[in-house]
Structures are given as structure tokens and as C-alpha cells.
């Protein structure tokens, strides 16, 4: 059996003896080549987990191993296994050019100068930054700065890449470029990627596996398809009606959204007959029906539902 690329065992972190746990007994195992999505609301413990994995934060309990190298006890070896782009951080030097940044971080990762230069050339060419390699990064757009940050994380060609909100603040085009690149890193280069993001479409599109964390605890950890399929077994319906009429009593859990000309009633039913009974009641109230649609839940629905379930215990 392969050594997991990222193995997190019983990880806990408290920022003070009386503080609530930021991460509470988290265990995860990420197989090599997997794109692993790590989701959760703000303050759930995602960034804390990534910082511990990156050796920037010591855990209160538990351990993280990268390609079998324990971050605490074999720090030097563990640091060579990954590159990281951290959220809310510049990640690269704005006073230096893209080229100077890449060479600097390559040298820090232990690369000989010639190897760093060769790799930097490849990365900057792939990212369409070659022509601007000698310009200071501070003058780049946010999207280009993020490209340089990702390139710097990849300079030593690590097998693991930790990406904390890599598309945050990027415009549509830059987001598309970063997404495409993440897909390439995994599919063509076999890299293991631990990705946190609030953009669930990014996770749905890229991730092989998803874990949802809330209040420091992992509430689910499943392959993306399996997670979505589990939710798709439940029938979710949208009923669109004209105007904003008085409505009969709705089944439990149904919500009403008012639009300009229409109203949408949405909800989940265990038995399809329930939807027919709802339609009958609407007709009795002389509500004009426009359309009825069975909806496939997206990852956003699943995520919100899981977080809601965890909140209610």
C-alpha cells in the first residue's frame, strides 16, 4: 500500500489553555495524486490545519506527515516535500521581479542555481509571464501576482501542493487560469493538492475528494462524486408560480423565494407523492403554476446542508 501523501492523525490545536479548539482531533489521509478539497465556514480550522501541515504552527496534539516525513520530527525532510500558497499573505516579494522571486525560493528549497533557473524558465513560460519576468511583482495585477506565488510554490517541483484560497480575489479569467493549472498539476504531473476555497464550483470541478470541517471537527470526508450522489438520492424540487399569492401551508423544510414576477417554492421530499399533494393544495388556492423542476443539488447545497446538520448536532 502506498504511503499517503498527506497523513493527519488526531490533530488538535488550541491557541490558549482556555480557548476553544481551533482544530479538534482531525484525522485525514490524502492519497498521492489526489486533489483534496478542504471546506468549511470562516474560522472552521482550515487555515490552522494547513499552517500545521506547512510547519508554521505547532499542534497541541497529533501529527502531520508529508510523504511519510513527520513535520515535527523530520522538519527538514518534510519541508522539501511541498510548496504552499497561503491565504491573506503576499507569498512573494513585491520589490523583486518574478524571476528573482523564483530563484530565491528555489535556492531556499535547496536547489542548485542552474536547476532553479531552468525550472523558473519553464514555469514562467507556462504561465505566460516570461516576457514580464524582469518586472517587479508589485506592479503586477492580483491575478499575475497569484500566478507568481503558485510558480514559487512549485519551483522545487514538490509532489505536494498546499493551496489556501488560491482563487480568492481573482477575476474570472485569472480564476479560470488558476483552476486550469491546478487541474494540470494533478492530471498531468500527478501532484497531490490540498485545496481550501470558498468557491464551491472550484471544488466541484477539481476535487477528487472533499472534507468539510466545522468548529475544528471534520463532519464529512468522502469522494466528491459519492458525497454529491448521497444527496442526489433525496428529491429536491423547485415550484415556480406566478406573482406573489397567498400560499397554503407548505411541507416542513420548504422555503419561499420572491422574485420580480414569480415566486419559487423549494424543498426536499422523501416521497414524490408529497409534491403532488403540494400541487393540489396550490391549485385549491388558485395559485397559477408556471413550472416544476427537479433539482440536482450542487456542492454548495451539500456543504450548507452538512454545516447546518453539524450545527444542530
Amino acid at each position, binding site marked *: 500500500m502506498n504511503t499517503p501523501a498527506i497523513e493527519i492523525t488526531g490533530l488538535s490545536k488550541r491557541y490558549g489553555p482556555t480557548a476553544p479548539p481551533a482544530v479538534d482531533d482531525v484525522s485525514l489521509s490524502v492519497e498521492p495524486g489526489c486533489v483534496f478539497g478542504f471546506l468549511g465556514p470562516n474560522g472552521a480550522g482550515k487555515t490552522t490545519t494547513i499552517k500545521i501541515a506547512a510547519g508554521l504552527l505547532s499542534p497541541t496534539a497529533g501529527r502531520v506527515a508529508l510523504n511519510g516525513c513527520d513535520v515535527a520530527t523530520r522538519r527538514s525532510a518534510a519541508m522539501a516535500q511541498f510548496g504552499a500558497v497561503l491565504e491573506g499573505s503576499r507569498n512573494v516579494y513585491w520589490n523583486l521581479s518574478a524571476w*528573482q522571486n523564483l530563484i530565491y525560493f528555489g535556492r531556499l528549497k535547496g536547489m542548485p542555481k542552474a536547476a532553479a533557473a531552468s525550472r523558473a524558465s519553464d514555469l514562467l513560460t507556462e504561465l505566460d509571464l516570461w516576457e514580464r519576468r524582469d518586472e517587479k511583482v508589485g506592479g503586477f495585477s492580483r491575478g499575475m501576482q497569484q500566478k507568481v506565488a503558485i510558480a514559487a510554490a512549485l519551483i522545487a517541483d514538490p509532489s505536494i501542493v498546499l493551496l489556501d484560497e488560491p482563487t480568492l480575489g481573482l477575476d474570472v479569467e485569472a480564476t479560470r487560469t488558476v483552476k486550469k493549472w491546478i487541474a494540470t498539476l494533478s492530471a498531468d504531473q500527478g501532484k497531490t493538492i490540498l485545496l481550501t476555497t470558498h468557491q464551491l464550483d472550484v471544488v466541484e470541478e477539481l476535487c477528487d475528494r472533499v472534507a468539510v470541517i466545522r468548529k475544528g471537527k471534520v463532519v464529512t470526508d468522502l469522494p466528491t462524486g459519492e458525497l454529491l450522489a448521497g444527496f442526489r438520492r433525496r428529491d429536491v424540487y423547485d415550484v415556480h408560480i406566478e406573482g406573489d399569492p397567498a400560499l397554503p401551508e407548505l411541507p416542513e423544510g420548504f422555503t419561499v423565494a420572491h422574485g420580480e414576477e414569480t415566486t419559487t417554492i423549494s424543498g426536499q421530499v422523501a416521497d414524490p407523492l408529497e409534491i403532488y399533494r403540494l400541487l393540489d393544495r396550490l391549485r385549491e388556492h388558485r395559485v397559477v403554476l408556471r413550472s416544476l423542476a427537479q433539482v440536482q443539488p450542487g456542492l454548495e447545497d451539500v456543504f450548507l446542508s452538512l454545516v447546518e446538520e453539524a450545527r444542530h448536532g
Partner: protein
Amino acid sequence: MAELAVSVRPLGVLAAEVRKGLLTQLAHPLGHVVGLVVGMGMYLGLQFVMGQGALRADLLPPTLVGICAYWFLQYSAMVMVADLVEEKRGGTFAQSQMSPAPAWLLMSGRLLTAAMFGLVIAIAAAAVPATIAGITVEWRSSVIVPAVLLVLDSLAFTFVLAAVALRTPMVGALQSLLTALILLLNGAFLPLALYPDWLAAVARLLPTTLGIEAVGQALFGGLSLAELWSTGALPWLAAHTAVLAVGGGLLFAHNHRRAVRDGRLGQY
């Protein structure tokens, strides 16, 4: 998946840190030039006032050693502290810590950058007033050891400030306060011999003072290394340097451990 081989190249890491540090500092050279010109002008102006309208030949050479030492300390501390605070705030410090190289090696690179920058500035700061005032100093080989210790003493002080910078961004205020005190008392404006005894004793506790005295005794008093040792100038300087270096190392290790525990490597 096989783990990557780890081979930290200490010289490569040091070279990368030095290059990055120098490039970062030279990105905005005008501030350094203006600071240097103002400082040199202030030094010559004060010497002119203290010489009652003339640059006194007996005061200038010893105070020139003092101002040279001050510039070295001031600039090396500024480069180290300003870079560290800025990088901690920006997040690049945390990014640099994700290196297989140990933290002490990365900090040594930063210290080396600070030393190089400080040395260039100190030489320029001393050479210009020396040329203007027509000062010539006879070279003596016995000055090498105290001069090296003076440099190490200043760098040890810089390292103490760097250790504090890991903990608080207010280190800038502490740095300004201490370097101003050092400038006033280390002999840059007045030789220590002119101070009352109690003030001279206080001044000798500050970085650079003992070094300036030892260098002055070698350079202008013609003392050999053995004589510098027997007068106590060299042992006291060596002890001062060692205490600052060990203290700085311990404080750095403590604050680094604490920053990793509290998740504050990339923020304050």
C-alpha cells in the same frame, strides 16, 4: 510517492538571502542616500560647533571611529529590523520559513545582508567627512581584532533586536531609542575620556562603546594586541560581544518557538 531528497545548501541559502536582502534595500535607494547625507552633515556640523567654529584635529579622528561604528550599527539594525517587520506583516517571512534550511541559517543570511549593507554605509559615512576634514589615520595591524569584535558586537545587538522583532512590531521604537542613546554616548560626538566617570560606565554597557575604545587605543594610542588584552579593553569587549550574541540567540530561539506555537510567524 517517493519523498524528495533533502540537501540543504548552506552557501546557496546564504547567498540567496543576501541577494534578496540587498535587492530589497536597493529598491528604494533615495531614502538611504538622504539619510546618509543628513547624518554626515549633522556630524560635521556638531564637530564644528564643539570645536568652537573649527574642526578640531584632536577630536575628529576618535569621533570619526565612533560615527563609523554608529553608522554600521544603525544601518545593519535598520535593515534587519525593518525587513523582518515588513516581511512578517506581508507574509513573506512565513513563506521563507517553509524551507528545509534551519531558521538559524536563514537568519544568518539576513544578518550577513545587514552587515554588508552596514559596512558599505559606514565606510562611506566615514570616508566623506574624513576627506572633507583632511583626516589621515595611520594603519596598525593591532586594530584588526578589536575592529572585528566591534563589528560582531554590533551584529549581536542587531540580532537581539531581530529576536524582539519576531515578537512585536514596536521594535522600531525600541531600535530608535537605543540607537539614539548609542549615538549620544558611544563616543561618536565626544570621546569617552571627556565624560564623567559614572556616565562613561553607563556608556560602556551600550553596544559599540567598548569596541570604539579598543579600536581607538590600537589606532591612535599605538597599543599592541597584548597591551589591549592587559588593559582589559579586549577581554571586556569580547565578553560584551559574547553576552549579546548568546542573549540574542536564546531570545531568538524563545521567540521563534513562541511564534510557531501561537501561529504568528506570518503575522503579529
